């Protein structure tokens, strides 16, 4: 059952077995598994419930409905990075690109080696990945659904002998509508709102949308419920006078790596080591664009369909992307009438994304209820971008581009391969890169040492019993690959641990 919080007109008090804050990649799989096991699960989600009935491909409208702060979340520091987040049933999965990767073995090894994490192994996670992939219909993108934008990069990479492959995505009957990040008009993308959430409803899970959780009720160092208020208004961003209180044996915070620390900090959790909000990793990303003589219709096909991983061991990967005009307009290197001119070339533009497995890190601070994000890019990551921009530009020239638009301030365009050395020689600073990021992680990290970590290997907080964090916050490092499948697998695993410990948790 999904209840629209804007329509609730009284204060409510409920008893449940498990209450979950947030319905994204972290919250929904746990809700499903726990409900299937007979637990009474209630999920509160601050955003609204939208499906293909609403998704109309109009990026501007969809951003207002489903993106946190209308897509204006930014990090501050030695550069500014746009960090879009979902605020909708299904969390960011409803507005993401659908790409699926298992956690790389090397990353799990690193956690064991450097963070003392012993129980989490590739073997332990394997059945969880398999189940996630089955439920979300994870499959490789067929060449014909890729769209010219991805095909061109693939062709260029092949000419240069770079290793690449079609990405795996969660999808069923995809028609290549090309607007994944704005809600799939066919609901072909198998985000939480079409997979885990309806499955959990079948087992009785209840979802309150436009319900903002504020307080974790703690008694004798044990979480016993949450309190919050409903939202009102067309966009559900104004506070309603009606409140909720949900008492439960287990409280799970799955508000994502930016808002989970807000909730934990505001409730005084994690004070013992001050680690909540620290260690923010984001996989900073940039785009390289190419101008081609041919008409590309880059808006057709799956925007994120191909990956070049030749340099993955240098912590750089390339993945497709495409942006509708409304979004691209703020990411062009021009001004005034020149933006208009460039926009007239829209049909000749191709773009490909660079994603860096970051060694830089940042933090989430809290001002009132608002997170303030700080992130400084270090020299190492900056140089990764230099290298990656150069490679992506070479790939585009190999694919026949006439001109490249690198994401570097003061280097508006590169008109021939002979000018590529400009990328090598430019005195680069982080604030010269035009950056965005889509994968916040690490702000309530898991570990074996209570002095260093926020949650243990079962994702229960060290500070408060029966309080679990299940979302992107728990990763000790960045993953180097898109994180949603890892989050879903960890969510299922943590739910199993809760089920296994149920008797002691309810004592």
């Amino acid at each position, binding site marked *: 059952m999904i209840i629209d919080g804007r329509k609730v007109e009284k204060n409510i008090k409920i008893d449940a077995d498990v209450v979950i804050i947030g319905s994204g990649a972290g919250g929904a799989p746990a809700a499903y598994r726990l409900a299937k096991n007979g637990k009474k699960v209630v999920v509160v989600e601050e955003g609204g419930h939208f499906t293909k009935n609403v998704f109309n491909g109009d990026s501007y409208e969809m951003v207002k409905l489903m993106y946190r*702060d209308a897509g204006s979340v930014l990090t501050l520091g030695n550069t500014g990075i746009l960090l879009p987040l979902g605020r909708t049933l299904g969390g960011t999965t409803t507005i993401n690109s659908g790409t699926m990767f298992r956690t790389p073995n090397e990353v799990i090894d690193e956690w064991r080696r450097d963070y003392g994490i012993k129980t989490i192994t590739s073997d332990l996670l394997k059945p969880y990945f398999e189940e996630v992939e089955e439920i979300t219909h994870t499959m490789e993108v067929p060449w014909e659904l890729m769209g010219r934008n991805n095909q061109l990069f693939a062709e260029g990479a092949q000419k240069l002998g770079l290793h690449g492959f079609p990405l795996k995505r969660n999808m069923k009957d995809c028609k290549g509508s090309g607007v994944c990040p704005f809600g799939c008009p066919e609901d072909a993308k198998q985000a939480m709102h079409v997979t885990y959430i309806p499955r959990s409803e079948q087992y009785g899970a209840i979802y309150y949308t436009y319900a903002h959780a504020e307080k974790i009720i703690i008694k004798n160092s044990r979480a016993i419920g949450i309190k919050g208020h409903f939202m009102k208004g067309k966009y559900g961003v104004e506070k309603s006078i009606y409140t909720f209180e949900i008492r439960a044996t287990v409280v799970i915070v799955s508000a994502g790596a930016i808002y989970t620390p807000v909730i934990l900090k505001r409730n005084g959790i994690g004070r013992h080591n001050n680690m909540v909000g620290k260690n923010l990793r984001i996989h900073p990303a940039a785009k390289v664009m190419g101008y081609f003589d041919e008409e590309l219709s880059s808006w057709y096909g799956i925007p994120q369909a191909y990956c070049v991983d030749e340099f993955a061991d240098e912590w750089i990967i390339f993945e497709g992307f495409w942006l509708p005009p409304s979004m691209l307009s703020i990411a062009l290197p021009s001004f005034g009438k020149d933006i208009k001119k460039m926009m007239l070339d829209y049909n000749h533009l191709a773009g490909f994304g660079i994603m860096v497995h970051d060694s830089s890190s940042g933090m989430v601070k809290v001002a009132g209820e608002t997170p303030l994000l700080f992130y400084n890019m270090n020299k190492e990551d900056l140089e990764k971008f230099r290298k990656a921009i150069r490679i992506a530009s070479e790939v585009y020239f190999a694919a026949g581009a006439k001109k490249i638009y690198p994401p570097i301030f003061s280097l508006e365009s590169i008109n021939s391969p002979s000018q590529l050395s400009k990328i090598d020689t430019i005195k680069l600073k982080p604030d010269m890169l035009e950056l965005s990021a889509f994968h916040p992680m690490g702000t309530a990290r898991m570990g074996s040492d209570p002095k260093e970590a926020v949650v243990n290997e079962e994702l229960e907080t060290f500070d408060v019993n029966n309080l679990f964090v299940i979302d992107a916050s728990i990763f000790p490092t960045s993953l180097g690959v898109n994180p949603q499948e890892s989050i879903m697998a960890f969510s299922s695993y943590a739910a199993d641990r809760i089920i296994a410990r149920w008797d002691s948790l309810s004592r």
Partner: protein
Amino acid sequence: MKICKKKRRFARGFVCRTVIAISEVVIPEGEGIDVPLDKEELIEEVDTFLLLVGPLKRFFIKLLLWFINYLLPILFLRFKPFSRLSFETRYRIMKRIHDSKIFSIRGIYILTSMLILPYYYSRNNVLNAIGYPVNRFKSKSEAA
């Protein structure tokens, strides 16, 4: 400006006047895509945006617009609010900001253009001019 006299929650007074003054230089008339900017609709959208971003960012954006309108011109030795400067002067100032090597100055352009450009480049007649297929999923949008 008549548009700015209309009662709105956030985008009124200097906020409204400054956004319009910036929008005229960020989206100059004619020049390639010959679709005029609907300023009234833009201001309605900015009002919604200011609602959506919440109180802290709203305060910051309003402060930024206040700075642009009242202080920025002084730094360029112009002693009138930005919204009352000629088109050419406003264009020159915004272009200098856009081209600045200092990120926090460039940030002024980046943040204010976020209020304006996505709106303009999402209008159907602009998309038509670009060749981007509008209403591909029209039946869905009607259902919404």
